[in-house]
């Protein structure tokens, strides 16, 4: 047991306790949490800073507004409803189309108006929010999957998680939805995490439920050596989020839209540790290397460049 711990330590694997004590508690001021815990807040900040985000169609904040849902949706036939303070992809409802009076959910189920209203009401009452606090529901643009990912995802849109420390991207992974995860790109629910080489944006092998894999479990296609387009844009997008919130240690979730390119989905002040398994590499050494830097460049582009030089292939 002790030898396992020692070897993990040699690999520089970051444990939950160290992440919390040394990085999150030290670099993330608590007053900044609301900026990322409330996605509406993050969206507004990002929008003001000119960072590309999925367009917000509307917000439902009180029960009374649930009836206004159709007018908020307007002409859009596809959209996403998500809780502003949700976590782990819970409570996200993806509507892909319209069938007469009903809405088509991403998994092919038809939902009537009442079902959607119930979902929104639940969201408002805090069912999906952290700590069960009252919440609001966001209705926003549904990201269209880039054809690149068709071969390696199932039933949803993959996203890219980049862990940013002191404004410098330190580790990244591609999160792919699977049948097991119900179309969500969340590793806890059975999504696949694929490591990304920071300088090049090429994918490594993957991990599902903490077991290393090389092929997508549903499509059977190899996960390795997929080149992510616009990788440098994604890196600088992640770097720019540092100025947005002031958080020292966070995870930026970015989606790649077929038409719009990289969009910032949300920020996470407590990014998980599975990214290390996906990359087969420990976060701790990388974080310590960034910590050792005397000066952090003020320019996001420069910081994104620093990531490429600091963490070579």
């Amino acid at each position, binding site marked *: *047991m002790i030898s*396992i*711990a020692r*070897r*993990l*330590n040699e*690999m520089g*694997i970051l*444990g*939950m*306790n*160290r992440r919390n*004590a*040394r990085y999150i508690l030290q670099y993330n001021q608590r007053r900044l949490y609301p900026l990322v815990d409330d996605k509406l807040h993050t969206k507004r900040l990002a929008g003001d800073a000119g960072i590309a985000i999925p367009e917000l169609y509307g917000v439902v904040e009180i029960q009374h507004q649930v009836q206004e849902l159709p007018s908020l949706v307007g002409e859009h036939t596809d959209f996403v409803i998500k809780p502003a303070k949700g976590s*782990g992809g*819970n409570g996200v409802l993806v509507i892909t189309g319209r069938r007469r009076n009903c809405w088509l959910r991403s998994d092919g189920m038809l939902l009537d108006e009442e*079902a959607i209203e*119930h979902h929104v*009401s*639940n969201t408002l*009452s*805090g*069912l999906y929010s952290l700590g*069960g606090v009252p919440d609001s529901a966001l209705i926003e643009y549904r990201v269209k999957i880039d054809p690149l990912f068709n071969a390696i995802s199932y039933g949803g849109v993959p996203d890219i998680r980049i862990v940013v420390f002191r404004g410098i991207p330190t580790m990244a992974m591609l999160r792919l939805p699977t049948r097991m995860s119900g179309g969500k790109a969340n590793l*806890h*629910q059975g999504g696949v995490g694929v490591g990304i080489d920071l300088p090049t944006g090429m994918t490594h092998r993957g*991990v599902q439920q*903490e*077991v*290393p894999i090389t092929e997508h479990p549903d499509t059977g296609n190899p996960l390795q050596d997929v080149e992510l387009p616009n990788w440098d844009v994604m890196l600088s997008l992640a770097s720019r989020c540092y100025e947005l919130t002031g958080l020292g240690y966070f995870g930026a979730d970015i989606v790649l839209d077929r038409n719009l390119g990289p969009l910032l989905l949300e920020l996470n002040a407590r990014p998980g*540790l599975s990214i*290390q*398994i996906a990359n*087969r590499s420990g976060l701790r050494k990388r974080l310590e290397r960034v910590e050792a830097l005397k000066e952090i460049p003020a320019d996001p582009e420069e910081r994104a460049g620093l990531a490429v030089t600091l963490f070579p292939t």
Partner: protein
Amino acid sequence: MKDLHVRLLAGILVACALSLVAYKVLVLHLPLTPTPDASVWHVEARISFTARGVPVKVQFFIPSETPNFTLIDEDFVAGSYGLAVDREKGNRKAQWSGRRPLGSQTLYYRILAHQESEDEILSRPALRRPVFPKVPDYDDTVGPAVEALLADVRAQSADTATFAWVLLKKLAAKSADENVALIRSHFNISDGQIEGLRKLLAGARIPSRVVWGVRLQDGARNLVPEPWLEVYNGSEWLIFNPLNAGRGAPGNTLFWRTGSEPLVSSEGTRAPQVEIASRRSVIDVYTLAEKRADLFDSRIMDFSLLSLPLQTQNVYRVLLAVPVGALVVVLMRNVVGISTFGTFMPILIALAFRETRLLWGIALFVLLISLGLSIRFYFERLKLLLVPRLASVVTVVVLLMAGISVVSNNLGLERGLSVALFPMVIVAMTIERASIVWEENGPQAAFKQGLGTLLTAILGYMVMFNEWLSHLVFVFPELLLGVLAATLLLGRYSGYRLSELHRFRNLLREQRP
């Protein structure tokens, strides 16, 4: 930097806790283990005399230096008499005085004493240096015999203690030579007479005195103080049995007074009768500690939980266990890495186990949660809003509890009634959390967290309500400072959790080839 700060703080807290505990254990003799009772002696001296209507003064020696006994309480029953207690040559003396008493009079002196051990009492401390006696002028008839005997004894001894011992042995020996026989008859040394022995010891310039001790016996009346010989060895008084020259007095000897003055003396009346009785009884160690604290003028027991009303004490017996349970939760979550429903829900469940007992508690809890969960799944299909749904679950939980109680009562399972002791809101919240985890992360995660919750609750119960541990935290609540120190240190623990070793093990497997 922060680590150092936390470590210092923890160190200070632990030092505070331990020094308070040490004080309570070493000085106040509070028990470290749950032994609820201590044995104490009630000793009563009854002084009776007949008064003739003239002013009366009665002087009575009372114990002052009592090795092996702690005088916990002392009580004079004096009626209309005036009472004065003063010290005189290392003794204490009570003086009762009355102006015109008439008829038969009784005075009482009572003490409550705790016997520290059963071991023999070998010596008593010397409060001040005694006067060294002059060598007495022995009669010509015995002078040479005494000198010869003392020279003989001196040759066979190493120090004062052995000198006295050898001398006493020689004088007590059955087959005695002429010298000893002469000395024995001249100094009237027989049957524990001590004055003669003292004269002989004075021949070697060794200070000695007579001390009267009462050997306490359970239920004894009419105890007579027996004389013991005390010999000064330069630092303390060594006790010898004058009858057989043995060292030390039995552990139950309560030393009453020194010197050869009579135990009781009076003016204005004939010599009073003294009857000493003793009785052994048992009192709670806490009472004993409180009395002892009074004796040492220590305020610490005034601020003890033991000074609270009994009902409040019982509440604190439970409350003080909670931080220990919290420490268990911290260990389970941050060091082991087990996930539970809610942070402190396991402790609340463990508190409920306290009432239901462990096995019944587990059985009832699992039954309640699984029944509640199945009904909760039905509610899920009704698409209820959050708060009304929670309220419905609470209602169902209460109905289930009532149902289980009634059914188990009919089946004659009395323990089943204790289901009513589960905090229903906690159960309802657990059901709600379990069903959300089930829905969102699958049944596997729900079972895992449920098991983690139950495991932590069981462990918490076993630690929190361990007889010894709950005794410790109740009698030494300052130990909670130590618990606080431990949780503070764990708050800066940045090592791996046990579960992470499992979680990341695949990384090592890949690396090895």
